[in-house]
């Protein structure tokens, strides 16, 4: 005759690994570190950062493939090249210096009186003849034209 029962007693013996963990746990210094580590892991896990790290390690090939696919398209490759060129350009410019009212075009710091006068037509013409400036201007104009075209297609 077996009466229905609901009580369960966990009688599993400690394994060697469990014993080892208990020893570590019993050490106050270790316990403190473990608790902090666990807290950190919990927090990282809750915010998905553990998964992000995991995915970075395990999914990097697929992601790289996806980027590779993206770059295979000629216009996207151009984006990458342009980004690189843009990066180089931006790195070479010191806008603070260029735009500062106290900065002279000669690059020397000085007072109000040292500022150069506005560029005249002759000076503008002279500079436009500079092949380097002309090339830069062509890029700007082409970019503006492209902006106009794309605006039109998604107006």
């Amino acid at each position, binding site marked *: *005759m*077996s*009466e*229905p*029962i*609901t*009580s*369960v*007693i*966990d*009688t*599993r013996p400690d394994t060697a690994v469990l014993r080892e963990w208990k020893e570590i746990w019993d050490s106050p210094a270790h316990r403190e570190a473990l608790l902090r580590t666990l807290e950190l892991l919990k927090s990282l896990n*809750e*915010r*998905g950062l553990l*998964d*992000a790290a*995991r*995915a*970075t*390690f*395990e*999914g*990097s090939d*697929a*992601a*790289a*493939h*996806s*980027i590779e*696919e*993206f770059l295979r398209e000629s*216009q*996207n490759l151009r*984006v990458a090249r342009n*980004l690189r060129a843009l990066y180089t350009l931006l790195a070479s410019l010191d806008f603070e210096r260029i735009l500062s009212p106290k900065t002279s075009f000669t690059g020397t710091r000085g007072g109000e009186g040292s500022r150069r006068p506005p560029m005249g037509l002759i000076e503008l013409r002279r500079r436009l003849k500079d092949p380097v400036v002309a090339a830069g201007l062509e890029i700007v104009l082409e970019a503006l034209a492209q902006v106009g075209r*794309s605006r039109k*297609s*998604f107006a």
Partner: protein
Amino acid sequence: MDGVAREAGPGEKLLDVILRTEPGFPHVCYLAPLGTLESCDTCLVEVDGRVVRSCATVASEGLTASTASARALNGRKEGLRRLAQNHHFRCSICDNNNGTCALHNAARTLGLDRQQYRPKPYPIDDSSPFYRYDPSQCILCGRCVEACQDLVVNEVIHIDWARERPRVVWDSDVPVDRSTCVACGTCVTVCPVDALLETKFVGRAGLFTGLPEPAKLAMVEAASSVDGSFQPLLALSDAEAEMRNAVIRKTKTVCTYCGVGCSFDVWTRDHTVLKVLPREESPANGLATCVKGKFGWEHLNSPERLTNPLIREGDHFRTATWEEALHLVATRFREIKAKWGADTLFVIASCTDTNEEVYLTQKFARAVLGTNNVDNCSRYCQSPATVGLWRTVGYGGDAGGIEDLGRAELVVAMGSNTAESHPVIAARIKRAQKLSGHRLVVVDPRRHEMARRADQWLSPKSGTDLILLNAASRYILDQGWEAREFLSNRVAGLDKFRESLAVYTLEYAVEKTGLAREEIVRFATLVHEAKSVSICWAMGITQHQDGSETSTAISNLLLLTGNYGRPGTGGYPLRGHANVQGASDFGALPNYYPGYQKVDEPGVRERLEKEWGVPLPPRPGITSVDSVEAILEGKIRAMYIVGEDKLLADAHIARTDSALRKLDFLVVQEAFFTRTAQYADVILPTALSLEKEGTFVNTERRIQRLYRALEPIGQTRTDLDIVIALANALGARWSYASPSEVMEEVRRIAPIFAGVTYERLEGYRSLQWPVAADGTDAPFLYADRFAFPDGKARLYPTTWVPPLEPEGEFDVVVNNGRLLEHFHWRNLTGETAGLEARVPNMFVEVSPELALEKGIRDGDLVRVVSSTGAIRTRAWVTDRVRGRSLFIPEHGRDEDAINHLTTDARDSVAHTPAYKEVPARLEKISSGSEPEPPVPRSNFRRGTPDAPQKGIRVEQKWQRADYHAIGG
């Protein structure tokens, strides 16, 4: 097309032709199973100089189309630009960024590089525990509406095109959890973006989607502030989508609940189910699911799961090692067999186990223990249906597939609350009725959803369905409406059958069934007039004393009217468990070996003895139902129960309780600490379906593979591993390396599975038995011959068994059955918080007239008393039941368990208990605090439905002042 000749099938849409060679061609609203919606304008092409939607254009002879013309391309871009006004591109922090977002993919293909996003002035609706709707991300494509209205036909949502900013609304614009939404999740499945998402998925799918909302918003703002193309950002999100595959696994499986056999990809992260995603190629369900299959998986991580073997020790169980537990089981089985004989042992196989596990369980009983005392839970439900089909057409399975129920001009649903018990099948029937004008007759005592939808609802007195069927058969014969040629060529026994119907006059039927003469005549006429008739039936038919007889009468009526052997015809018993069909198919029956080979048929046993290498017992065993009596008589002394809560499953709990107490030794193999497990001497913890490899057979005889999505937790093992270990502990020397090896053995011994291989079942492929050695399967039975030696079906005369009727103090009759949200005793569904919250308590449905008589209001505490016991529960006054008929859900597991009331009456052939024949008494105990139905307001039954509609009414969009056709 673009200067190249292309071939197309008859009526094929231009878009489908394009997609064959250009799968990345933009299209957002179009999804083949939903048909053409025409709401997104992203698939535009130029045809004969006109810009048209390729999804709505039929590819015809001589048609000239261009996908590449500037007008077509600009048109597609314009369509996309308009969609983008309704959806904020923030893909890298979007949970739906999984490579399948139709909008994202269209934006990449068309090179969308900026958007003019206009947020809608509506908050997110996250009132449902299962999914949430974000109007501001909704592109109004209408897929969800089409799915709800016309695919699964729950008819809850629509787009309110009249608003300044249209949105999807539930019923008459109420929150999701105040609506009639049954949470089947099909809308979520088809949503192309992140407007509708599974709650469990939100914040958990992506690498950055779990970040705090302010951080995510800052990222979005930073990205948006960069003027110019966001194509590089889309590319980065593609990379992020790829990286998600490292943390999210997608595994094909088959649902663990009812017998429909829905298959889907289950997306898991660690040991958690994030998403269930059915696919177009899912053979039984397509894109449809029910709330349990879509959202009911929290049991996998329930703290209530058994994770260690347990051994009874005095007044408690103690944890044990597997070696210890298996040794104890083997020792005790050996001892009892030696002392009392092998036939004092009894084995119950699980209907939610895989076929391979069931096969080895029955083999364990026969070849290791040496007894044919093995059975499965089909004994409690559909065995009578199998008897009816065996008698008349030869195979104990559905005549065709689920799609035949959609093809039938007339479906008769008998004793089946299909919309709640088999919702995905109900969807097929409802769709055919709504879109194709097919007819539906429902024969059931309750006015449930299918009854409300029916062209004819018949509610005969409990236990008189056979009389209705036979009276209809006789009326058809009297009118000369029988299918004479079919009967002459393909059916035997007409004369005796005609004689057997002599008593079933209309007058007799009216007297016994309580139906009007006109109702019976109309029923017979509908059957006669329909070109194809399918009858599906469930436990409202089989769980009567005459369940086998009524099942036979159903098949007789189909034969009489020539409704077998053609698409859309035949008999369809609706199986209730994921693998209840397979449990019988693979031999967990006391009188049949795998593949329905009779134990006592000459030559069969000898063949199996040769294959298995051991002598086998010659006599058939006893049934699971009879085992209770056998225990009480001392004829059964030990039991091995796999995945069956026998205490709650058998009729008459008090009697089962006495029997289980009396056993010398009981082994329960379970995932949870069930009521039956409490009686065990040893409990063996098992893995659940997502933790297994193997196959299931669904209600339409379809064999499908399930793959292991998760590792078994704790010390749990699969039933396959356990039964192998147990057999070997008893000296069997089994060495199956995998479930596929088991299947290889099955195909050698069971001719109906001769061609079943794992390769042929790879992925979403499936086979419907019988399967010939060359792999040819049988989606449709009886096209040429019936499964009898002469190929002819049999009309089998039937006998009505009067049911137990209310009399004396027991003046009401108790009906019982399933609710949509739950399964069995809630061991699984009770662990999913959302399901439990929708139906936290059981109840009894009381008709308004009976409630008036008894002074009962909603929520009152009542007692229902029968000759065997009593239950306490809350009352719900509703017109779903009539007169003196009560309905109690079968999911109670404590003092509200239905089998406290059921009796020992049973079907005399299949021995299935007459669960549906329970005379009882209803007593009010106390009033509730206020009249309130016993389910919460969030339960869909308490919602108020809005008017259904066909389609998404996209023409209302086109009529809006702010809509202008693209391309003229």
